[in-house]
Every structure is written in C-alpha cells, then in structure tokens.
C-alpha cells in the first residue's frame, strides 16, 4: 500500500507499471484491478482555465487518506492500493489524482475504487484555485457528487 502527495508531475501508467512490478507476491492472487485517474481540464463552469493551484492541509490530508485506505482495504478485502495526489501548480492535461486497487474479484475492485474517489473528493482537505485564461483567479466552490 502506498499513499503519496506530491508537487511533481504524475505519469499514471508508468507509476502503475513500476508499482505492480514490486508486488510479485500477488501474481496469481489478483483477479481484478480498478483504476481511476483524474486530470485537469482546460474548461470549467463556462470559463477557459489556463492553470490551477492545489492547496492542502498536509498533516490532515495524509492522516485522512491513510485512515480511508485502511478502512477501504478491510471493507472490500483488497490485496493492495496505490493512491497519488498532486499539489501545487498544475496545467491542463496534468494528472491530479490516481487511485488503483487490486483484489481477487471485480465487484470488490470496482466498489472500492469508487468509494475511495467519492470519499477523497468529499472529505480530503484539498482546494483548487483556477487561473482563468481571460485573467484573474477563482477558488473552485465545491465538488459535484459522483
């Protein structure tokens, strides 16, 4: 299990490739992997967006995500979880979040991946401030339910 909050760009598929190579003990145990990747769009609420800044509450974010992942792994008997979240300055196309789960069967993988994303989006203390292409900055007001 790995949780990382980083200011560095995330290459989601390369990270998954290298992470999965480090779990050889699970070969033959894993029947299902479900992955969600959230990336920055260049358009939001009728405005073109040129950049975004992601702020967070470091100690609480890490604690919240660790508790969430532990609870989710138990609830759905997961074999492994990888969760990455970007902070700092990002531009359109950048990966913001990656959630990957590994389990024996697909129902658990789908449900757990969805649960992690919905909880993260509604409770983890991150905030987005958008830079509008036409000038100015604005805070994103709230996340929409999935």
């Amino acid at each position: 299990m790995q949780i990382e909050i980083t200011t560095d760009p995330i290459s989601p598929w390369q990270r998954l490739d290298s992470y999965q190579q480090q779990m050889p003990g699970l070969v033959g145990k894993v029947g299902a992997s479900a992955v969600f990747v959230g990336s920055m769009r260049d358009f939001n609420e009728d405005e073109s967006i040129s950049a975004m800044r992601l702020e967070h509450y470091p100690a609480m974010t890490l604690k919240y995500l660790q508790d969430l992942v532990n609870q989710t792994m138990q609830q759905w008997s997961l074999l492994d979880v990888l969760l990455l979240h970007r902070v700092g300055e990002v531009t359109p196309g950048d990966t913001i979040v990656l959630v990957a789960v590994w389990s024996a069967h697909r129902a658990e993988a789908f449900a757990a991946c969805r649960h992690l994303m919905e909880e993260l989006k509604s409770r983890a203390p991150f905030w987005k401030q958008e830079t509008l292409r036409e000038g100015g900055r604005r805070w994103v007001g709230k996340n929409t339910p999935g």
Partner: protein
Amino acid sequence: MTIEVKFFASLRERVGHSDLQLEPAGITTVTDVWQQCTREAMPANVLMAVNLEYVQSGHPVHDGDEVAFFPPVTGG
C-alpha cells in the same frame, strides 16, 4: 502551551491569517476559537477539524490542540 489555529484556501484569504497561536484562557469550544481569531461571522459551510479530525463547532478545545477552519474541499 498554546492553541494552534489554521485557516485554508478562500477562508485563509477572507480571515487574513493562515496560522495563529491563541492563549487557551476563555476557550472551551471550536466556536470560541473562531471568535477569538476574527470578527467575521462563521460561514454556514465552513469545515472544522481538531487535531486533524473533522468536528462540529461545539467540539471541546484544549490547550495544545491544533484547530483548523476551511471551506468545502475540492480535491481529486
């Protein structure tokens, strides 16, 4: 010791502080912490945490606690 108070994102800009240290005298709840930090009314949608856990405004606050106020979260 003191009570450590943090404000994030749009609330940090609105209140004008990111970190404050308060003397614990006269502070019993999270609401008391807010009122010692600012004359702004507490927004209806504000979120609060004590020692990195979500709480409600009536939650008790003790010397040495870390108290945070922030707007609805928008990560992911």
